[in-house]
């Protein structure tokens, strides 16, 4: 399933890397529910959030600057950072 990473740029502790914001990828696997690090980092009682592994092509992330367009990056992204693409 194709997903896009929110093109959001909030302050504070975020585990969605800058280089993936706004990029479109495929869900590689669902991992399960984990404590939301954005709350945990501030010692707030964290809610459980779905964590997903998403696969992005190098071309999608770097465009013409991609070393090899079909190489990929796979990253764990919290579902609240994803929208259908």
């Amino acid at each position, binding site marked *: 399933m194709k997903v896009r990473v929110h093109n959001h740029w909030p302050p504070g502790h975020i585990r969605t890397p800058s280089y993936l914001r706004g990029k479109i990828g495929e869900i590689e696997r669902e991992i399960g529910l984990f404590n939301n690090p954005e709350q945990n980092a501030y010692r707030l009682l964290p809610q459980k959030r779905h964590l997903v592994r998403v696969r992005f092509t190098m071309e999608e992330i770097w465009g013409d600057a991609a070393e090899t367009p079909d*190489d*990929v990056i796979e990253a*764990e992204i*919290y579902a609240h950072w994803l929208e259908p693409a």
Partner: protein
Amino acid sequence: MPHDNHDHGALSPSGHPYRKDDDNELNYWQMMEIAVRELLIEKGHITAAQVHNQINAMDARSPANGAKVVAHAWSDPEFKSALLADAGQASRDMGFDIGPMHLIAIENTESVHNIVVCTLCSCYPRNLLGLPPDWYKSRAYRSRIVIEPRKVLSEFGVEIAQDVQIRVHDSTADMRYIILPAQPAQTMSLSEDELAYWVTRDSMIGVGLPQAPK
């Protein structure tokens, strides 16, 4: 294993240069470490024995553990399937105490070569492999491996053919990764113990390949 060298200016038992240590002038951060540790003990949050035991536990964790897991996967197809399905449980089944770590094993094949990084900090499967190498924690590795993996690999002495896809795994959240390297052809007749000898730390991160007898 190199012999213990009694000249502290030279090399440690593992063959590496000593970091500035006990003989050097006490600096601000070392003072802080002592103070934090003693305060936590005085306040009853931790004990000195726990500190001692935790250091020993981390010292006991090394790439040799990962090498045993890899060698077992190469020797036992059922274990390999279990490892790829749930690497944490498979490691525990082998007797390794990895604590609460969530581990994913990713397999290298003829068509795919995998590499691990933590671009956001320095996440590493430390509860199996021990502490990560300094270069893994460096900004240069973390920023370059996701944009020019083949160039970085060639600097590590590894060339990946163009018809092999590279997958870079950025451990951004709760998972930790170990790469299951492809078994070198020259090792097919070796025993499991012999196999473990040839599995390098770098091959389990993906910046190296397993060695093999000539």
